[in-house]
């Protein structure tokens, strides 16, 4: 531990020398024991919020869940003590633990959409824990739940409980889950990345609702996230974790303004890439003209009269919330969803609407990279086979010639030859995405569509991928259509920007122009919703907003 822990009284939770282990089964090797959390200690006072931050694999969720004596996916708590309200819950036994879960400690999951049972009404699930522990009668619990729905500014608080999870939006579900956690009036709530899966514009509302609810009910919270700017809005103190070890522990202000550890400093100063905007050329590589596309035989129009240009060797960033039509634009360009109206011109030739009608050259010169790198690769093929496939398919390369080119591509994505014989399962998230980039590059494309390629990655890893993409653009003169909801990424990589809202392009132009006021209402909302690493940002942002977010 780097610095002395702040002084505490009135302790609610005290974790001492927590050690958590799991058994891993590496392919072709005997199972081995790995330690996920190394002797971490922390304390949390009543009514306070402690942020746990770190990248994936830091052990933040594992530590959070240990406060409920729960190990996810075969994880074992093998050492230390977890004192809750003065007693060690690890020694409470199965029944004792059940009496604590849902009563003294409640949990809010990252994806409320998955964490709610699709077969039951929301109200039944919200009051379930309170009824289970006998802390309230059904009528009392429902009354409390409705009051909480109102406090969390859910629409129609008296009746929303009669709905099923699929009838409510993601941002609303996340708030209902917070109400569910608060309904049994616990002493502690574990928030496990509660806003990470949401759009920025929705995130800000949910964050504000959670913050108000914590303040008004006086519940203590462990707030787990990888986003320092988010945790800065809500936490009193922050613990930085890395590889299961505690790196730094301090006040929120101290952590974000005067980090004492190098790693914290890296986290605080992440995503700063200065990218010089390139001017538009006279002949765009891809020109989308008045494209309208719909699902269900024209029933649901998801793209309305969209026109954008991409210039050779440049990046067009398409930003917007989920459901704004960003990915549908990519599907229309690739021909997966043939447009109903409009034309798409690529390298001077008009592209056939349907994928099946396109020439092999069109396919080769227009490649895609996806958000989920691990599902975009065949798990039974090695890296060399994955990258070699487009070489065989488009260029007819075989044997040594192909292997040499694969090695060259691996070199380009800053991975050595040693990776050629590995399987996707043996790679980290960032390495998988690099292999996908190499596969796209193998076809020597003139345009790559990048669909949220950094969204599933940790900030530091995402930073590396963005750097790589920019370097490759300079070397190969390839253009990118970069789909993202993350405005920091846009600033780092784009030459021009299209802002999409409900299937339409609401703002489009060179980056400098799009990001310079005066803004239209939606762009203003989008820009002002990006959390800043500043205590008090949330309140200022909420009060300065001109329009409500679409997810509301």
């Amino acid at each position, binding site marked *: 531990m780097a610095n002395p822990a702040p002084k505490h009284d009135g302790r609610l939770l005290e974790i001492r020398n927590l050690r958590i282990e799991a058994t891993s089964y590496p392919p072709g090797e005997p199972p081995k024991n790995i330690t996920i959390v190394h002797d971490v200690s922390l304390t949390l006072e009543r009514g306070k919020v402690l942020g746990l931050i770190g990248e994936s694999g830091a052990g933040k969720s594992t530590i959070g869940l240990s406060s*409920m004596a*729960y190990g*996810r996916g075969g994880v074992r708590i093998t050492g230390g003590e977890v004192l809750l309200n003065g007693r060690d819950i690890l020694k409470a036994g199965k029944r004792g*633990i*059940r*009496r*604590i*879960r*849902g*009563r003294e400690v*409640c*949990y809010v*999951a990252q*994806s409320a959409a*998955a*964490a*709610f*049972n*699709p*077969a*039951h009404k929301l109200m039944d*699930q919200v009051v*379930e*824990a309170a009824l*289970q*522990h006998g802390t309230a009668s059904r009528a009392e619990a429902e009354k409390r739940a409705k009051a909480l729905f109102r406090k969390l500014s859910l629409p129609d608080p008296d009746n929303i409980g009669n*709905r*099923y999870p*699929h*009838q409510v939006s993601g941002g609303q579900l996340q708030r209902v889950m917070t109400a569910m956690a608060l309904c049994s009036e616990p002493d502690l709530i574990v928030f496990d990345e509660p806003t990470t899966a949401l759009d920025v514009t929705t995130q800000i509302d949910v964050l504000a609702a959670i913050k108000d609810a914590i303040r008004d009910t006086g519940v203590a919270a462990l707030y787990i996230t990888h986003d320092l700017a988010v945790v800065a809005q809500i936490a009193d103190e922050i613990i930085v974790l890395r590889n299961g070890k505690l790196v730094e522990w301090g006040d929120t202000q101290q952590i974000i303004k005067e980090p004492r550890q190098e790693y914290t400093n890296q986290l605080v100063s992440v995503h700063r890439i200065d990218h010089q905007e390139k001017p538009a050329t006279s002949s765009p590589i891809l020109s989308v003209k008045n494209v309208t596309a719909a699902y269900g035989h024209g029933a649901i129009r998801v793209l309305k009269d969209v026109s954008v240009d991409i210039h050779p060797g440049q990046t067009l960033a398409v930003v917007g919330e989920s459901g704004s039509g960003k990915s549908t634009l990519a599907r229309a360009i690739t021909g997966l969803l043939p447009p109903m109206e409009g034309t798409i011109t690529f390298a001077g030739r008009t592209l056939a609407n349907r994928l099946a009608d396109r020439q092999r050259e069109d396919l080769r010169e227009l490649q895609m990279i996806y958000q989920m790198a691990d599902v975009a690769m065949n798990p039974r093929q090695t890296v060399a086979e994955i990258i070699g496939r487009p070489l065989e398919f488009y260029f007819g390369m075989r044997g040594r010639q192909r292997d040499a080119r694969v090695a060259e591509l691996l070199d380009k994505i800053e991975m050595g030859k040693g990776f050629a014989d590995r399987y996707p399962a043996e790679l980290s998230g960032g390495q998988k995405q690099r292999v996908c980039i190499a596969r796209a590059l193998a076809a020597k494309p003139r345009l790559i569509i990048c669909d949220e390629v950094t969204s599933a990655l940790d900030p530091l890893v995402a930073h590396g991928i963005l750097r790589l993409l920019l370097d490759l653009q300079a070397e190969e003169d390839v253009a990118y259509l970069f789909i993202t909801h993350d405005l920091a990424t846009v600033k780092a990589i784009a030459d021009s920007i299209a802002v999409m809202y409900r299937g339409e392009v609401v703002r489009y132009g060179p980056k400098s122009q799009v990001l310079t006021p005066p803004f239209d209402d939606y762009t203003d909302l989008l820009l002002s919703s990006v959390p800043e690493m500043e205590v008090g940002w949330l309140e200022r942002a909420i009060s300065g907003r001109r329009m409500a977010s679409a997810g509301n």
Partner: protein
Amino acid sequence: MQILKLIAQRIALGILLLFAVSVLIFAGTEILPGDVAASILGQSATPQALENLRRELGLNEPAIVRYFTWLGGLLTGDLGTALSNRMDIATSIWPRLKNTLFLAFWAAVVSVPLALILGMLAVRYRNGWIDKAISGFALASTSLPEFFIGYVLIFFFAVKLNWFPSFSTVHEAMSFGDRMKAIALPATALTLVVLAHMMRMTRAAILNVMQSAYIETAELKGLSQFDIIRRHAFPNAIAPIVNVVMLNLAFLVVGVVVIEVIFVYPGMGQYLVDHVTKRDVPVVQAVGLIFAAVYITLNMIADIAAIVSNPRLRHPR
């Protein structure tokens, strides 16, 4: 309403399928050599007698016309006349169908809840000795041929212990209690035959659901394992379970031939076997169609149950 449309589609498909099966059954017996007149009069019949009988039975009409005559009869409850004893098929089938349904009903009443509960228990104690014992017992009882189980039951419970009769003959005059006593052994044998399939499917379907994030939510609310399985896992596993349950219910009605013969139970199976040996085509046709109708109806119910159990379809946005 989307859901009503889906259900109406299923029902329409079921009816269409039933008509297709009736065509198949009719065509199948049409392809067989010889016709009903030849079967009735035997090999020594004169061509003139055959011709007369054919005219009398309407066999000289084109196949299409005869098919629709047969179908029209079916729809109005006239299943035709048996060749072997010149009896009206409908009147002789009805009491036997009732007997078969009676046996199937009580076998289902025991086996379905038992299979579901055993399946849930197996999930609750998964990979432990209770799970293994349940699976072992269920698989063993399914692997044994039903005639073997039947004779073992007769040997112990009828011959040795004398608790139940070894012949399960039932007749109109019997009281309900006597009837139940008579079908105790065949119903037990049937239960043992269908139990494992349903129980294994329940176990697998629930285990599949147990991977979901909402199961973790339930665990973190402090619910007990069995409550989690019953309240949170089972409702989401209904669709696959119902399918297997219905398949087994259909087996209870149409697959009981062996059991009925062993226990001399006067049901459809025995009736069918009797008339197959006598080459009584109209009876085989009628029984075949009834069995097909049972299969199609039960599977249709399974499909509809799967639709109705899906909250997304029941409560559209």
